[in-house]
């Protein structure tokens, strides 16, 4: 029953490197070996490509070149933005606001600052995963150094009202950072319109390799350096510049921004088809996250009575690569903090599946996928003592049996 060619449905974890990007990186590795800080010909040639790449990235989010700083990952961008802002006010402003559903790059950064004495407010989210601007306004204190709320969530795909959140911060004169790692490549990003002070990007979510990111820092915003050392990136981010990846990042962002709306529409349509089919086929299934404010390529389900890792392993065996918020895939005992934060009970959160699609998906593959998924879920339920209890009427299910999906939509729109 295993299909021959594999189907990659984990684009939120990482994307394959785009063929044109590979070519660009390879040719830069071959032809641009000069250190951009060197004043001789080879160095200046590299420097020019560096600045050209910076301008391309800048213009793709409506920023200026001097507001773009290249980093080595989304993680570094998040660390820098938050630690840089917080440490600038060390001893003075010792309060940080974030949300409960941020990526670990933000949450663990906050935790490490907490060890230095910072006080962290983790804003709750509603059942769709949305942060309320009112709650943010209420949480801001005179000693708040920075607010960091992600633009779109990596697990459930929920899109935050960044413009409103940023405007709350601007009004209260508090720095606002957004982790746009999942948004970039899927949503248009216009930093003037958004009104954010800082914004994190990571290349491997849109066709560049893993290991290259950027931080937008609005001109005039001063934060501490995170990577101390040489004078690269106008003295703000040290380390010899990774020119091949920087050029590749610029190429990838150009490609992904080129027909963004067309791609997004296509993804949304395929994604909805997938959701519809899964929900109509498999009972006791829940769609996690908002239906309306959702990344085009993201679907996230919970299947009651089963556990996510075994689901992933069986899907893998059938040729499908997906991800889960199961505790077992992360090596902890608790399942995804995101799923718990939107109110799922532990047992439901354990049985989650994230499907993050690319534009190469087709209705045919969706059908194959749903057939496999149904078989696997049935098989795992047959093995599950929780399902046995339910069948024997010893327990009532948490997720209603049928038409759950339609009821869910009705409620939302």
């Amino acid at each position: 029953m295993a299909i021959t060619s594999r189907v990659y449905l984990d684009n939120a974890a990482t994307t394959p490197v785009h063929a044109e990007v590979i070519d660009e990186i390879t040719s830069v590795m071959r032809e641009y070996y000069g250190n951009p800080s060197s004043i001789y010909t080879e160095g200046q040639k590299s420097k020019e490509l560096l600045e050209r790449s910076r301008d391309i990235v800048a213009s793709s989010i409506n920023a200026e070149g001097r507001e773009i700083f290249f980093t080595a990952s989304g993680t570094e961008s998040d660390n820098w933005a938050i630690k840089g802002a917080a440490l600038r006010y060390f001893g003075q402003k010792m309060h940080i606001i974030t949300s409960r559903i941020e990526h670990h790059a933000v949450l663990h950064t906050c935790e490490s600052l907490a060890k230095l004495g910072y006080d962290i407010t983790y804003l709750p989210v509603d059942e769709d995963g949305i942060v309320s601007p009112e709650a943010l306004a209420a949480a801001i204190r005179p000693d708040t150094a920075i607010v960091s709320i992600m633009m779109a969530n990596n697990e459930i795909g929920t899109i935050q009202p960044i413009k409103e959140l940023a405007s709350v911060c601007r009004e209260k004169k508090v720095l606002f950072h957004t982790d746009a790692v999942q948004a970039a490549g899927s949503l248009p990003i216009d930093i003037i319109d958004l009104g954010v002070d800082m914004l994190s990007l990571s290349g491997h979510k849109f066709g560049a390799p893993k290991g290259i990111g950027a931080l937008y820092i609005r001109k005039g915003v001063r934060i501490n350096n995170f990577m101390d050392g040489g004078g690269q990136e106008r003295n703000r981010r040290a380390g010899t510049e990774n020119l091949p990846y920087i050029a590749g990042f610029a190429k990838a962002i150009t490609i992904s921004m080129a027909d963004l709306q067309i791609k997004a529409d296509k993804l949304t349509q395929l994604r909805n088809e997938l959701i519809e089919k899964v929900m109509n086929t498999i009972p006791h299934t829940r769609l996690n996250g908002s239906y309306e404010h959702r990344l085009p390529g993201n679907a996230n389900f919970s299947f009651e009575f089963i556990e996510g890792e075994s689901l992933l392993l069986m899907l893998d065996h059938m040729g499908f690569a997906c991800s889960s918020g199961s505790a077992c895939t992360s090596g902890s005992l608790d399942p995804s903090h995101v799923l718990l934060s939107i109110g799922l009970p532990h047992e439901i959160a354990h049985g989650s599946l994230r499907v993050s699609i690319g534009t190469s998906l087709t209705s045919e593959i969706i059908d194959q996928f749903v057939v496999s998924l149904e078989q696997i879920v049935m098989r795992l339920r047959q093995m599950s003592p929780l399902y046995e209890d339910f069948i024997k009427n010893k327990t009532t299910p948490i997720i209603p049996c049928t038409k759950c999906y339609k009821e869910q939509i009705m409620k939302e729109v």
Partner: protein
Amino acid sequence: MLYSDKVMDHFMNPRNVGEIDDASASGTVGNAKCGDIMKVDLKIENNIIVDAKFKTFGCGSAIATSSMATEMIIGKSLDEALGLTNKAVAEALDGLPPIKMHCSLLAEQSVKAAIKSYYEQNGGIPEDKKNLFDVLQEDEHSV
């Protein structure tokens, strides 16, 4: 690969899945909150485990260890089955990733829980065996 071929075999083709209608005893450990539950039914005749079936809610290694543990105790005396350790189960599976070792504990525990309940229904736990059941308290997973 994350798992050995043997783990994958026992995960994809688990032995002894199911229930025993006239089970002599049954043991359930773990809880849904932590993401793994294992229930084992034993059929015991003359102190020999003549059949064992399991149901497991859990990850790949939880299912594989359930399968392997039931294989290992069928045909064994209760004393022998009580000697089953999570280490032995993991070894029989050609090892587990370190982070997954707690799943093999579940297999050991559920077998012990079933035997304990068998003793309790049949004249009580022999004095010299009581300490063997300590493991049921050792892990936060126990119900």
